[in-house]
């Protein structure tokens, strides 16, 4: 599978087959997860129905971080091994990661209003996510500023790797500093502490978000590769005449 993605031709064939399946799974998971999370799951005993924001907020936060980690991995393989698909992958993940970061920020703010009485507080978790958002923006701005694709991808890869230092800060900010934001209750060394009646719909929603993100990334990669092909075609045609 991984080697199947190594070469653009094979990637196009494989992804064409995979894409409908992944999209289908995402739709199915949403069909199960959304009603479960928003209706059937028990309301939180303190927070009542506002706690249901969690089912969007938490998966969005996870994907914001996961996509950045993916970009960093792709950047390494693009810088070190000059992998042809790696920079396409990194470039495709960036806007989607930025969007999930924005969703995480907005849902967090919406949740903060009833919970903390403020849309926003400058604690370490919130600040570090905001910084993550700015890193995403900078990454996209740098891509936009360089028209030559290989140069753009290498410059952006450097930026991405430097920015990766922020990722552990986002993750562990709740442990390292006193934050208003609560610490992790799912991904913990000693296992999840969340009640299963909340945990299970959350996991379904997280899976649904993940599949949706994967489908979006694959689709965007395909667009990039097709556009590259179209460009080299016009180039060849211009030379032939």
């Amino acid at each position, binding site marked *: 599978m991984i080697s199947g993605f190594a070469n653009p031709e094979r990637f196009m064939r494989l992804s064409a087959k995979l894409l409908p399946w992944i999209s289908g799974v995402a739709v199915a998971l949403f069909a199960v997860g959304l009603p479960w999370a928003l209706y059937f799951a028990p309301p939180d005993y303190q927070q009542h129905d506002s706690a249901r924001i969690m089912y969007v907020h938490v998966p969005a936060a996870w994907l914001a971080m996961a996509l950045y980690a993916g970009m960093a991995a792709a950047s390494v393989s693009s810088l070190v091994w000059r992998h042809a698909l790696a920079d396409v992958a990194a470039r495709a993940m960036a806007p989607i990661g930025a969007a999930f970061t924005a969703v995480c920020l907005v849902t967090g703010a919406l949740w903060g209003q009833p919970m903390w009485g403020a849309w*926003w507080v400058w604690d370490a978790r919130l600040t570090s996510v905001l910084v993550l958002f700015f890193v995403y*923006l900078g990454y996209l*701005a740098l891509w936009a500023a360089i028209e030559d694709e290989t140069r753009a991808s290498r410059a952006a890869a450097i930026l991405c790797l430097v920015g990766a230092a922020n990722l552990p800060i986002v993750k562990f900010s709740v442990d390292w500093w006193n934050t208003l934001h609560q610490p992790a209750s799912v991904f913990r060394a000693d296992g999840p502490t969340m009640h299963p009646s909340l945990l299970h719909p959350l996991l379904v929603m997280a899976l649904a978000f993940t599949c949706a993100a994967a489908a979006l990334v694959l689709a965007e990669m395909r667009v990039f590769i097709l556009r590259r092909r179209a460009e080299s075609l016009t180039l060849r045609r211009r030379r032939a005449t």
Partner: protein
Amino acid sequence: MSVLTAFTGLFRRELSLAWAGGGGAALPAAFFLGMAALGPFALGENLDVAPKAAAAILWLALALATLLALDRMFQADLEEGVLEQLALSANPLEAGALAKILAQWVAVGLPLAGLSPLGALIMGAPPAGTPALALSLAVGSLAFFALGAIGAALAAGLKRAGLLIAILVLPFLAAPLIFGAAAGARALSGQAFAEPLLLVAATALFGLALAPPACAAALRLHLD
């Protein structure tokens, strides 16, 4: 007639250079949000200050953004020889300076002003006063660019133009900054803000009257 064509031609060119490379006003916008975040970063534990100081922080962010944009306002055109070509014309450099000022205002100042309500909300300011705050920033950024352009023209082509511009310009920015921040703060706290806002507008008008001849004279000096 021909002065108008010339003026809009230069104005449009400045705008398209400022927004070049896709994204239009997105870059200045992202930039402003970043700048607006710097204040709270620095305030840290003194967070309780933030809503009270929201207007001040946004005004400072606007000042920073202006200073950074000013740095290249004339320098690049001077070094690449564009100003020489513009100078050899029936149209006065004064008109060129005015076109550049207005274009910077539209390209950088107005997007920032438009975003400021968002920034104010993040800092916990009440929504009611934010339109007035945005208005004050829009007027203020015109004053900033007009007055700042004088410093930019004076420093263009000199060593360390960046810092030099900042120093030349800081005293002129003080007046609009003080009145503007006051107007913004009053607007956010629901007080009457017309008086300081009018004072900001007055500095903007003063700048618009003064800047074109001052810039043109400075640029002619640098052509030598």
